[in-house]
């Protein structure tokens, strides 16, 4: 941080938002690259992802420090306080996304030693694109303070779950059919779970963005698909 420059309170808040957005961009590219690494069996890319994770950790720490400093020195109120705390919370969600992407990359390295399972990695790719799209939308919502977009991400939470469940079944069928594929199948199962977790973090961020802008929680009117099952 550049403490030698005396900055206005507004500048400091803008700086915090910019840093969180930058971190979002980094987390996004880690997730996108992780998906590309799995589907293309690209071990070089997977190793690069593992190496880059540290930057996300550093950014998370920096944002946390800056936010604490701002709270201590400026004592923000209301909207500004929500922005400051929101930045801290979003940063830690993004850091988790990065960890999950790193985990996917590590599993890619193991998967590359086994025979390719193109049909399954294709399904992973499809679910991955969905999750990456949600992460992108929610960071867009944050950087543009766009509440509609945040709510849209939040409302479509169940799509990822549906994909996860379908993929789960697909993987089980595959592993039952040929026990030699269990190692690869188990790793793919964890990868799918990681993607689902990234989707959950996107939903969390949507909630934080909503709270930051309105000061209120999103009212839970979300239709849970289970209740819609035919009786």
């Amino acid at each position: 941080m550049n403490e030698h420059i005396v900055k206005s309170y507004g500048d400091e808040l803008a700086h915090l938002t910019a840093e969180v957005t930058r971190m979002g961009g980094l987390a996004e590219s880690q997730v996108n690259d992780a998906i590309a690494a799995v589907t293309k069996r690209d071990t070089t890319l997977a190793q690069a992802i593992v190496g880059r994770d540290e930057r996300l950790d550093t950014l998370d720490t920096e944002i946390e420090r800056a936010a604490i400093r701002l709270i201590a020195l400026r004592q923000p109120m209301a909207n500004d306080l929500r922005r400051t705390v929101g930045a801290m919370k979003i940063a830690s969600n993004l850091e988790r996304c990065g960890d999950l992407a790193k985990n996917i990359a590590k599993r890619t390295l193991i998967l590359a030693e086994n025979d390719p399972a193109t049909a399954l990695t294709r399904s992973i790719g499809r679910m991955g694109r969905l999750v990456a799209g949600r992460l992108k939308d929610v960071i867009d919502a944050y950087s543009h303070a766009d509440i509609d977009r945040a709510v849209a991400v939040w409302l479509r939470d169940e799509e990822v779950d549906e994909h996860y469940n379908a993929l789960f079944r697909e993987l089980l069928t595959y592993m039952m059919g040929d026990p030699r594929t269990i190692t690869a199948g188990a790793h793919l199962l964890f990868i799918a779970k990681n993607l689902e977790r990234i989707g959950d973090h996107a939903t969390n961020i949507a909630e934080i963005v909503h709270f930051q802008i309105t000061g209120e929680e999103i009212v839970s009117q979300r239709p849970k698909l289970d209740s819609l099952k035919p009786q």
Partner: protein
Amino acid sequence: MPAPQPFSSGSGPERRFHLLGWTLSRAPGSPPRPPPPIAAAPPADPLNEALERLPEPVMVVGARDAEDLADRQVLFANAAARDLLRLQGGVGPLVSAIRDPQVLEAIDESLFGGLEGRCVFHTVGNQDRHWLALTRPMGDSPGGARLALLLLRDETDARRSEHARADFLANASHELRTPLASLSGFIETLRGHARDDEAARDRFLGIMQAQAERMARLIDDLMSLSRIELNEHIAPAGRVDVGQAVNDVIDALAPLAQTRGVKLEAILPARGEVVAEGDRDQIVQVAQNLIDNALKYTPDGGVIRIEVFAGPESAITVPRDPTAARLALLVPDHAAGELYAAIRVADAGPGIAREHLPRLTERFYRIEGQKSGERSGTGLGLAIVKHIINRHRGGLMVESVLGLGAAFTAWLPVAR
């Protein structure tokens, strides 16, 4: 940092962008001249206008403080850049427009290192785009801020055709193998012990013809799918009367429905009432594939309900039957207040189990245990529908109740 100067203001250093002749014609003190003969109303500044209308996104970024990311500001963005990066007003903090770490790094190198940068950059969404980002240092502005130019070059076409070719080959070779194996099996039999058996020969030739037709359908579908995929990122230009298009499809399929005793019940708008932005042939294909599917799964004597209507997305996706399992197969990129034209086709078939819903638009996905009757499809129908609707920036949803039937709704923006 002073308020960023929009380039169109035409004062200050931006003056140098003026075309010489035009500047002379406006030189201070010169008497008003008659307008140039060719253009009745020339743009205020042709060079700015050219930059503004350049199909490739162009941005100018300014910054003072190398350490502070919030200080990087977009000073100018042409129409293509504003559209791509959703930059309202064309100015604002750089990170809210672009946050790709590599592009940010390249811009920094041009701003503070005086280097030319180059990297690839993807924008994801329903229509994935691949860009080559080029950055150039532009020196210092009169206000003391450092400037850099960012140009994005669309490389989606090249990437896509590469991909499409690989996909096409993989799919085609895999799916054509089965009918081909059966054809060669029958040829062998006909040359061997069935050579003189007239009844068997007729029967075999019938099967062979069906298999050959299946292969032809498959190739047709694969070709149209790869054609659609190649153009998916280019929005269609044209106006389609959706009601009329669907009506034509119903007319064409009526004889087939009649032989099966299936009733096609349609609620269509008046001519010219629901007009969408789109490619007519493709909209016809959407309706054709959806109604064809409905015919395939509706038992003899059943009823297929077809509706065409317009409304906001929330009205189109409202659940008709609260007990139905529903899933959006495609959701358009969020645009507030957009009006859509919708085509809804509800069959009276067995319905689709929930766990199959997310995979319906996958190529060649078939639900296990599903009988493939004589009119068995290629497994590409819904994939084609999804890609066409995505090209039209629309959405697709499925609802299903086991034992009662399934309904597909496709929607696309109405023409403005």
